[in-house]
């Protein structure tokens, strides 16, 4: 078990190191004079421009050798210093991101967890009922094949434009300022609903299909046949099959996190939902490299942390990893 975690830890630290390095390259390896390009695109007045140019030239440390720039970057990183946003000058990047993060958590956490639970549940049910199989499975295939943004577009067109029962953009009514009241919470929920549903539905389809197919494989496995041959009731056979079929689904969850994050990104764009995805798009459009860098850093950390949590969960449910008998993925 310690070997398993040791290896995992090594992979995680390597990944983190590499991902951060790539992230570091974003503003520095842009063609031309990245500072100049960046600043000329940003919406700054002359005074701010000069300050910024001075700041960023110093931040890039053009006089300092590259390796030192790199070390400085890590140093700043551990002090929570991500630089200053150009597009939202003079706010620090970390502050801009922290404003967006709650919306991502609000959107992603329920969408990922609920779709996973519901998908597995329905997938397992579909594997035992022909009627459900004939409805859930085709629906699952359609949903999992749907591009995130298209489902978002469709939902917002139908429910926000045609039926006009949900708002089309933002995280809460533009007429409100964030405060604690029922009206505000209601507005937040109303704005949250469509983006959540569109993320939820696409993932739900994928999990349901995965679970259905895994269960059918497991019910054909030798240990299932043996139980049946010994007259075990269907309940026990299904219980074992479900338990073993859920294992690949847990691995699947960690494999899929990157895709879900990208999906959340475009969903936020469609609904102008002010999470990190929406922020990245704005940063790209305004060539705000430091903001982009900061956003990616957050995504990297989020995905790694989630993966780690999933690994721990996996060890709890699969005895084989505890025994160190199989490597991951086997």
């Amino acid at each position: 078990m310690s070997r398993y975690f040791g290896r995992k830890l090594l992979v995680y630290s390597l990944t983190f190191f590499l991902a951060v390095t790539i992230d570091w390259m974003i503003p520095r390896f842009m063609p031309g004079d990245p500072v100049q390009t960046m600043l000329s695109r940003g919406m700054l007045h002359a005074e701010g421009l000069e300050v910024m140019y001075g700041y960023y030239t110093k931040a890039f440390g053009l006089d300092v050798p590259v390796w030192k720039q790199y070390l400085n970057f890590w140093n700043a990183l551990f002090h929570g210093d991500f630089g200053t946003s150009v597009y939202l000058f003079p706010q620090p990047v970390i502050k801009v991101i922290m404003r967006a993060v709650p919306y991502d958590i609000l959107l992603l956490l329920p969408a990922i967890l609920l779709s996973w639970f519901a998908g597995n549940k329905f997938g397992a049910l579909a594997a035992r009922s022909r009627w459900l199989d004939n409805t859930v499975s085709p629906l699952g295939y359609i949903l999992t094949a749907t591009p995130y943004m298209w489902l978002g577009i469709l939902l917002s067109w139908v429910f926000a434009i045609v039926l006009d029962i949900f708002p089309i953009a933002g995280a809460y009514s533009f007429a409100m300022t964030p405060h604690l009241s029922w009206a505000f919470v209601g507005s937040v929920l109303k704005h949250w609903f469509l983006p959540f549903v569109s993320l939820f539905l696409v993932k739900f389809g994928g999990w349901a299909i995965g679970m259905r197919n895994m269960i059918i494989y497991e019910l054909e496995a030798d240990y299932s046949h043996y139980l049946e041959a010994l007259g075990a009731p269907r309940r026990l056979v299904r219980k074992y099959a479900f338990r073993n079929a859920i294992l690949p689904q847990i691995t699947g969850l960690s494999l899929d996190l990157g895709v879900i994050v990208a999906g959340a990104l475009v969903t936020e764009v469609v609904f102008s939902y002010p999470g990190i995805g929406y922020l990245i798009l704005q940063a790209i459009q305004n060539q705000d490299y430091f903001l982009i860098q900061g956003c990616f850093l957050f995504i990297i950390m989020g995905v790694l942390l989630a993966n780690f949590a999933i690994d721990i969960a996996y060890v709890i449910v699969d005895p084989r990893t505890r025994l160190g008998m199989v490597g991951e993925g086997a």
Partner: protein
Amino acid sequence: MSLRVENLTVYYQTLKGDVRALERATFSIADGEIMGLAGESGCGKTTLGHSLVRLAPPMRFVEGRVTLDGEELPIWDTERMNDFRFKKISIIPQYAMNAMNPTRKIGRMAAELLRSRRVDFRAKLPELRSRLDLVNLSHDVLNMYPIELSGGMKQRMVMVLSTLLNPSLLIADEITSALDVSSQKAVAEMLVAFRDQGCCKSVMVITHDISILYQIADTILIMYAGQLAEKAATATIIHSPRHPYTRLLISSLPKVGVKQSERRLTGIPGSPPLLLDPPIGCRFRERCPVAFDRCTEVPPFTEIDRDHFVACWKAFEEHARA
């Protein structure tokens, strides 16, 4: 009489039609008898064994009657058969290596299985432990996952599990084929010990390896292409077989006691007929050296001597002459 099978006919459903894997099988196994069931692969021996335990699609019950200890088995009804499985009729499957749930400790799996059959696990525990001793397994295996056991250990563990409720009939399906020669012998002897200790009343040993049967079986039933060919005491089958197929089979054995591989059996010229559309009459006809015109009729499986059954017109003639 422990097991009595009459006219049992089971087909395999495929897209191309019914494969007639088992036709009109009639035989019986006495209390305490270890009966070997042998034949080439695809001759229907596995179909016969499995249909007695769990007759599930693509297998299809056509007709027949099976009684065990005087009670009729509803083998066509997968649900109702549950009452008999494990308690009255049990199986050591061919796939014993993978028969146990990989993510449950063996003891816990046994407990859950027994509880699901409304058997008190704790009351059975001493019995379980003594059976583990019988097959030379440490009691610790109950606290292990299947993956921690070697192939031979898994095989023995499954033997213990399958026989835990002292079934009247135990079906051992190719239990030696995945093992090396020395473990084969040990496992075969354990099977006999199980019968002797009353862990099971009668045993049906399905195998293509006749030399194993020579060591442990009281009687041998030979099948060919979905039909019963001959059944008699082991010595009779080995030394004075009546069915021409049995004769060829036995004579193709290099020497009794030497490990016999499946390939050897095809040493008989020709190959078994396809059971999708089998020839009428005796199915061995086309490969049979002594076939004559009568063989276009199906020979009945008839008792020509005491406890010696055979299905061959030539054998009937010879017997009548003798």
